[in-house]
């Protein structure tokens, strides 16, 4: 599987200009500093870090929402630099994104069927009947019913909405799916269902995931490779077992130490420390 690299990022930078005011000088904030990464087809790269570390900025560049300041992104052999070339249908078709908040990412006045068909309407010239068939097929694939086709987002629970958002993302049969904290807003048991769904879809459609998360237990479960970001820089990058087994950077170690332990031994230790 090595060699078949679907996502190749070299020396990626993103700088935001901060406007000056009466008392403040204009300055620049570099949100992503020199990121390099390779993701092989059909695998999952997890990007971990705290808020403000640049992981969502990275996601925005990968999904062509934002342009990079410098550096190269290559998806499935196709170079991406939207500030120079703009976005073509072909590029859009390769990468899709699922956002964190399933309540904010669906238009409340759009029926589910329309939500799912919109990417096809915009990017292909498929006839309406075919679009509908494909939407119904996708609903079934993500574990929803055909009768959900005509309903509005407010009629669904958080987990169901996230299923809809996933279905929308895979309507275009993308190669690469960027998942920006897809399970953070969900309950534990619903989280398990969504993670299972993602695993099934990956196997079935050969999808490649860039999975952004701050929850290390989820990352350990789903990732093949892990990248830890801190203040825009990559401080740790390796296979899951390397990173979890032998963290090198002090920030990664802090992160591991801060993750709550739910095993019986650590509870026993805590209670003993408290009693003493």
């Amino acid at each position: 599987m090595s060699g078949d690299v679907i996502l190749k990022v070299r020396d990626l930078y993103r700088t935001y200009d901060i406007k000056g005011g009466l008392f403040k000088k204009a300055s620049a904030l570099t949100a992503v500093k020199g990121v390099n990464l390779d993701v092989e087809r059909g695998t999952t790269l997890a990007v971990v870090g705290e808020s403000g570390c640049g992981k969502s900025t990275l996601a925005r560049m990968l999904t062509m929402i934002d342009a990079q300041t410098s550096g190269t992104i290559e998806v499935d052999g196709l170079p991406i630099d939207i500030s120079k070339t703009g976005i073509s249908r072909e590029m859009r078709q390769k990468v899709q994104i699922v956002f964190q908040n399933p309540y904010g990412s669906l238009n409340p006045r759009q029926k589910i069927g329309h939500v799912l068909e919109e990417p096809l309407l915009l990017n292909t010239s498929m006839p309406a009947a075919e679009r509908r068939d494909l939407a119904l097929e996708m609903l079934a694939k993500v574990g929803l019913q055909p009768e959900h086709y005509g309903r509005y987002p407010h009629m669904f629970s958080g987990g169901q909405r996230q299923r809809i958002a996933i279905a929308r993302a895979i309507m275009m049969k993308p190669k690469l799916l960027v998942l920006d904290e897809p399970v953070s807003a969900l309950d534990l048991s619903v989280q398990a269902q969504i993670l299972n769904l993602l695993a099934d879809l990956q196997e079935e459609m050969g999808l490649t995931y860039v999975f952004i998360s701050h929850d290390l237990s989820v990352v350990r479960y789903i990732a093949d490779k892990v990248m830890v970001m801190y203040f825009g820089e990559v401080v740790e990058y390796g296979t899951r077992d390397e990173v979890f087994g032998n963290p090198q950077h002090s920030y990664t170690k802090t992160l591991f130490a801060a993750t709550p332990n739910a095993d019986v031994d650590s509870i026993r230790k805590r209670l003993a420390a408290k009693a003493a």
Partner: protein
Amino acid sequence: MPLLEIRNLKVEFDTAKGPFKALDGVDYTVDAGEVLAIVGESGSGKSVAMLATMGLLPNTATITADKMEFEGLDLRSLNAKARRKVIGKDISMIFQEPIASLNPCFTVGFQLGETLKTHMGLSGRQAKDRVVELLTSVGIPNPAERLSAFPHQMSGGQCQRVMIAMAIACSPKLLIADEPTTALDVTIQKQILDLLVKLQQQSGMGLIMITHDMGVVAETADRVIVQYKGRKMEEADVLSLFESPKNPYTRALLSALPENATGDRLPTVSDFAEAGGF
């Protein structure tokens, strides 16, 4: 006598489709110096129970209980004025969204001082000194300067520290924390949990942690109540809950933790619901 004792608490909401039972006969007791965790998914009634105790539910809610006592004081019969004397002083609460819980139009110093002036009758000068003291105790750097900061000038973790400072301002006997760390990063979560537990041990107050995160339960609780769809599934001390969960729902919750995953697929609660019947 327990600090808080509630027997057979029921909460119903009037909706367009008729009454909706959010909580169906649950008992809660908390002793002074104890950390009780209430765990459950959304819709399990864990927040509703504590909002009912605080008297913060809207008018559409009907609350009934056989007993609802805080230090022997019957909370059911309190009128609004008497309730205000207790709530915010002896019982206080921290909410999930720290940034939304603070008023964006006032400085944190003003908002903290307000509590102290209302409940403790402190003068402006005394209140200010006490606020600096409180901000120091919750670990805000340069507290004297931060008094004039507005909530939007602080990070989420700092806002939550301010909320905690506000909640402990009048040395409450019972602190209710409703998902206090859900909106925060893991590293900040650790700091906030450590802070809460430290304050709880120093002052000997009772602490109720409402959460859906089993990790948070494992790190803080003495005793745990597991709720599902408005009913209590299990009540146990923290060690026996994790070591030998009795109820099928608790077992389902624990096995849905990704770190407990053994096979390729995560078991979900519905897998257990079919087999265990709850």
